[in-house]
């Protein structure tokens, strides 16, 4: 590792970790994949990042970026060794502007700390993923995070105004700016969102903020079955109620939530609707929503004015972890599908799953059209060939219903990829061509997202 000496010139000893004990700790993220980097660096500012990338480029060393290490796709795992750049120490809010509604942050700040940091100014950043307390903004951008409020306010892509980032050659570039319209030509800012660190490392983000709504209402509606919940959800949207979030949980996930919050909860499916705006509008829309729910046989389980008062909001956010923790999960599909077709898709998936002794647990953002469907083993053992057969079958079902899977292809992680039919050869080619144009030596996070 000849380049190690050069790294020692750039970093103080406590920022450069080479001992096995530290490398072991940075060898995995929440995906469970394990691969030790050759060295871990913890930069404090853009200069150090630029210098280390320059060294990496000269020596053809792989570079992987890491924030909170909370990702489940293995994005922060140094699959080909090399240098792991951990942004833990770059966690400041650089500046906030109430008049111009933006905030400049370093990538290592956690989502929750950022949002609570701007709260005192009466501002909100509307992307609130479930991992908010541990995932960092850098990771949120790299993975295109969405939150419960994305239905109304969009995803990370819609709320990122500009970036300062480092190219593979070690040059610092600024793209975008502080205004909503700020780009001429290709929009590299938004190209970077979801790029999982394969095009470059971002060292500063400019995020779009909104004034905090005057009031909020969170309604938790219980239905006997998923079908009614889906119908209610569609109707709510059609009635022009401008909800900020619509979340859905099927009967199985409600069963899991019951164990956590309240055993006396009635069985069935749950819809969580959040409405924000000025007080009178909230009032009106909330009553309209509850009326619609009642039309479909639903009842109001909770009606509060803020997240902290709601037991269900927290349960919804921790559902992902609870499902994985039940230990019987065989397959997790992250589906995107038109909200109005959620029920028919789940119904078909249930049929296929039943035939193989699996039971699906479905929950997600009914408004934004992103559903997580985890298949749990309901009886006996399952053979590996069955799993791949089943994944192929369920994928076909999803596509037939006009949806698609939001899976990434992780060749290097040794996992046989779920090649989605829409992500066919031409998709691959464009992705690879862009990558080759930006990162010719392929040093950034090699092996992730696309076939190399």
């Amino acid at each position, binding site marked *: 590792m000849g380049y190690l000496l050069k790294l020692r010139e750039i970093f103080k000893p406590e920022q450069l970790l080479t001992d096995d*004990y530290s490398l072991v700790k940075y060898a995995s993220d929440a995906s469970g994949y394990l691969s030790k980097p050759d060295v871990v660096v913890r930069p404090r500012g853009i200069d150090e990042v630029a210098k280390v990338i320059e060294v990496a480029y000269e020596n053809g060393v792989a570079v992987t970026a890491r924030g909170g290490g909370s990702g489940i796709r293995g994005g922060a795992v140094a699959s080909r060794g090399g240098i792991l750049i951990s942004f833990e120490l770059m966690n400041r809010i650089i500046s906030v502007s109430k008049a111009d509604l933006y905030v400049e942050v370093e990538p290592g700040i956690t989502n929750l700390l950022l949002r609570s940091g701007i709260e005192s100014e009466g501002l909100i950043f509307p992307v609130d993923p479930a991992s908010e307390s541990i995932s960092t903004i850098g990771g949120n951008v790299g993975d295109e995070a969405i939150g419960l409020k994305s239905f109304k306010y969009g995803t990370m892509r819609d709320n990122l105004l500009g970036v300062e980032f480092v190219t593979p050659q070690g040059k610092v570039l600024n793209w975008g700016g502080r205004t909503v319209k700020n780009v001429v030509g290709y929009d590299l800012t938004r190209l970077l969102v979801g790029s999982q660190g394969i095009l470059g490392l971002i060292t500063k983000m400019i995020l779009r903020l909104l004034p905090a709504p005057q009031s909020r209402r969170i309604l938790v509606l219980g239905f006997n079955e998923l079908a009614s919940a889906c119908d209610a959800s569609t109707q709510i949207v059609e009635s022009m109620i401008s909800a900020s979030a619509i979340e859905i949980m099927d009967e199985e996930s409600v069963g899991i939530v019951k164990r956590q919050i309240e055993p006396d909860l009635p069985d069935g499916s749950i819809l969580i609707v959040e409405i924000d705006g000025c007080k009178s509008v909230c009032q009106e829309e909330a009553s309209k929503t509850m009326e619609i729910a009642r039309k479909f046989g639903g009842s109001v389980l909770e009606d509060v004015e803020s997240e902290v008062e709601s037991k269900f909001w927290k349960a919804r956010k921790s559902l992902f972890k609870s499902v994985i923790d039940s230990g019987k999960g065989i397959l997790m599909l992250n589906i995107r599908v038109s909200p109005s077709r959620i029920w028919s898709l789940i119904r078909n998936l249930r049929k296929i799953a039943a035939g193989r002794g699996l039971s699906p647990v479905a929950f997600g953002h009914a408004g934004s059209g992103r559903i997580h469907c985890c298949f749990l083993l309901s009886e006996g053992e399952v053979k590996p060939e069955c799993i791949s057969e089943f994944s192929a079958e369920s994928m076909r079902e999803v596509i037939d219903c006009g949806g698609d899977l939001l899976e990434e292809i992780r060749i290097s992680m040794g996992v046989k990829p779920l090649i989605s039919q829409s992500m066919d050869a031409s998709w691959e080619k464009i992705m690879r061509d862009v990558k080759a144009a930006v990162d010719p030596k392929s040093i950034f996070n090699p092996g992730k997202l696309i076939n190399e």
Partner: protein
Amino acid sequence: MNKSRFRLRAPADEVEHQLALFRGESTSYSHLKSVEEEIQRCLKCGLCRSVCPIFAEILDESGCARGKIALAEALLEGKLSLSRIFTDRLSKCLNCKSCVEVCPSGIRVDEVVLATRAEIFERGRFPLIKRLVFKYLLTRGRLLPPISRTLAFVQRKILKCLPQSSPYRILLPVVGIDKERILPVFAERTLTQKYDEILRPKGKSRMRVGFFLGCSLNLIYTQVGSAVIRILLGEQMEIVISKDQGCCGMPVYSAGDRRSARKLAERNIRAFKKYDVDAIVVACASCGSALKRDYESILGLRKNAFSAKIYELNEFLNRFGKNMNAKSQSKIRVTYHDPCHLSRAQGITDEPRNLLRKAQNVDFVEMSEPKRCCGGGGLFSFTHYSIAKEIGQKKANQIAATGAEAVATSCPSCMMQLEDMLRRSGLPQRVVHIAELIAENYPPLEESMERSHQE
């Protein structure tokens, strides 16, 4: 102690790592094997990072639970061997159990850390002086009072209680104490010297309770011990302060010395067994959690009669207390700090608040994060003062923000840490044990004690 100032860093530890492999050190990690299941359940989700007080300060994966489990796992799988770096990483844990509380898999991270430390200790990777102190001093309880009296004498007469400007402060780092620290003062007479072994209330006694003192109440905060005695006598309890009791074993257990911990546990059990007590009351949160919960693993017993009799003071008063005076007094504004070993380890949070609200001399106000760790961590604040300072400072600010005159808590270790933090920041709040406040709602000792046992 940070010895690495005087030595090379990474290269030397790599050598030690290789040496350990070469020596073929025993890799049958029996303690770790017993918590193997806990280690395997870790999903590496990282949620522990959001609550770990140490991680919030150092922003390094070794601070949080996930990092420590990764290390333990690598050790079990033979990918790593013990070395000074390993010990250093494992030492950065307060045992505050915040991670246990938040972990979605419910992993007992505290057990994993303590098991790993036991492995380290058994292989002799522990400062010699400390090992000798554990083996020969703490296990022989009767040595402690005379030593503490000597220290008290030295503090009062020679070092004059170490005010900030005393030149002798330079000597503190020699014994591993940061020279800026404000230290508590050892009492001139220990509690066991001040009082007889059995104290009876005037009139009929309702129950016979043992009083487990713990080192802090016996040697340093004797006024807290007196307050507890005042409360218990006021509740018509006959009190047994067994002279054979000693250290609960938490410091040695926490450091990994399970053998000494076992000796201490057996001694404490014998000390109270000879008196047929209905319950044993303890006023130190750390001792309480050790006596109730850790004795199970220390003694290797699922349940034991001793642990079943242990009641923490707040718990005891909520359950059996009924004589608290209803006469109105002048009130002081007080806020309450939840010790980690009381709120998370024993699940006791409402009980102290019930008492404070009932007390006639208290105007109770909550601080913004009462359950947040103060950074004391027993001996942690002595060995890692800079981190403990950062954690404690945040707590001190929150206390000041309440506008209270005093902060009450149920753990002498927290008391020491809070006192240091508040005085360093020049804040005016006093630190008291909750017993000292509650005691004011009971008749004074002379009135409730059957015979005068104190001089």
